[in-house]
């Protein structure tokens, strides 16, 4: 259920646009932040709020890499593996993190603590390799440094 608090935030988001639907992308961010994912049920509720068909919301969830339909663990860790990072060893780092966490790309540790993924260029090319943990960048990393960042997560 999209509770009152989230609903109030969604209404505020809608008010920022001249057309209601403009607030839909922001509403998806709000729901995912609040509930850890955008479930099928949440998509249906959003569809009702925005007067669109459920499939239109579900399509957005699938089109935008940011959104996911099931929860992904407490901390989401993404390694940039595009060319500038790859040239500086990003894939070696990624393999090292897989071993350190005991999971593969796209998986979450058994305790639900860390989800590991890879991403396309994150705009940190001069400070490669790097990882993104939620909205925070950790740059100029080596494997030991990256492991230390992950170990410090709750």
């Amino acid at each position, binding site marked *: 259920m999209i509770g009152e608090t989230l609903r109030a935030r969604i209404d505020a988001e809608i008010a920022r*646009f001249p057309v209601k639907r403009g607030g839909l*992308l922001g509403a998806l961010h709000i729901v995912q932040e609040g509930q850890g994912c955008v479930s099928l049920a949440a998509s249906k509720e959003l569809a009702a709020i925005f007067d669109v068909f459920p499939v239109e919301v579900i399509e957005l969830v699938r089109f*935008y890499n940011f959104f996911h339909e099931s929860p992904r663990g407490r901390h989401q860790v993404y390694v940039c593996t*595009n*060319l500038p990072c*790859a040239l500086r060893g990003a894939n070696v780092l990624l393999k090292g993190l897989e071993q350190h966490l005991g999971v593969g790309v796209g998986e979450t540790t058994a305790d639900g603590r860390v989800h590991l993924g890879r991403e396309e260029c994150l705009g940190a*090319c001069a400070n490669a390799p790097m990882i993104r943990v939620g909205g925070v960048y950790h740059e100029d990393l080596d494997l030991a440094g990256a492991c230390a960042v992950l170990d410090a997560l709750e």
Partner: protein
Amino acid sequence: MQKVPFTTGYLTAHCGDDAYGTLDGYKAEGGYETARRVLKKGTPEDLIETLKASGLQGRGGASFIAGQKWSFMPGAEDDTGPRYLVCNADESEPGSFKDRLLLERAPHLLLEGILLAAFAIRAEKTFLYVRGEYGEAIRVLTRAIEEARAGKVLGPRALGSRFAHDVVLVRGAGAYICGEETGLLESLEGKKGQPRKKPPYPAENGVFGRPTTVNNVETLCHVPHIVEKGADWFRGIGTAESPGNTLFGVSGHVVRPGLYELPLGTPLDEIVFEHAGGVAGGRKLKAVIPGGLSMAVLPAGQVDVPMANEFLRERQTALGTGGIIVMDDTTCMVRVACIITHFFREESCGQCTQCREGTGWMNRIVSRIERGEGRFEDLALLKDVCAKMEGKTICAFADAAAWPVQGLLRHFPQDFQSHVTHGQCPYPGSFVLA
């Protein structure tokens, strides 16, 4: 936070200190005085003329003349409803990280550029679309916009003038194609970021059905400087056709990867060897991608080229976003092709058959060559797929996917041939794939 540039100029002089970060700091450096003067006493027509005279080219990749783009917007006689400015802060071109610096460290410079551009096109609102991954930029901009509202820089009487303006910050959600301007407009409307057929162009029918101008972050950051110091001053920097400084981003195998604010037309070899300190580890240069992943590569022998489109064009490549990716002599160009084609395969919006199928096809072909399972016909096949993608789709994404592959085949066919002949990679020390 993005590290400050190694060489600075008018754009980034204050990116290392607080002057551009807080409203008071910015004002203490004379910030917002130019916009205050223009909003109170200037006219949109004069402003557009100044921009046209300056020759400022858009810095989002397509290098379109900014003043000209503004002049496409309807004039004062059109009073059918609101018009909008969209600031494209979706920066996702691999190898590009310049807008991030300006967003994080010069938010008020950007807001002043936005106010001036909005005044020129008579926009009542700006949608500032920031890529979702740029968490720090979003935090900084949210604060700067609040400060600007509280300080009456934005609002019903912006900077004490009769011009009303507000900025709406919108967070992207991880889709490269939303950087394409009409994909971005769709995304703002709460839809999938699938680019639109043009015409109609955004100036006629943009976001929410209204006339809209889309400008890149860096483009807008040049504007206050041009208006303050004049078109002639700006023309005095860079080349005749490509005036002004720009922010080059250098990454890959160099001693000093980072940002460099330099005039357009600065030779590529000077940037790589002098500014960025040359190839790291004492190795030799193999190749340079001059303008972000979408642009064709140049081999080591061709890097003596001024970084401006009129010169890069002769070498069948372009300035793009000024993201310079440097590769040393250990680098396997087939692996480079794997990364490039994987990226475009992942990011195609899927509307056009040539693009949707072509990007997947290219990726499968180069991947099997990389695995040592390629055939000699594959090279011709790749060229053919590229030719069928170029210039035939709704947006320039398909061209941007074909160009870099064509560049690799043009300059490094031996890397591909060697994989096919020997069934393995001839570069044991090359970077590795996932």
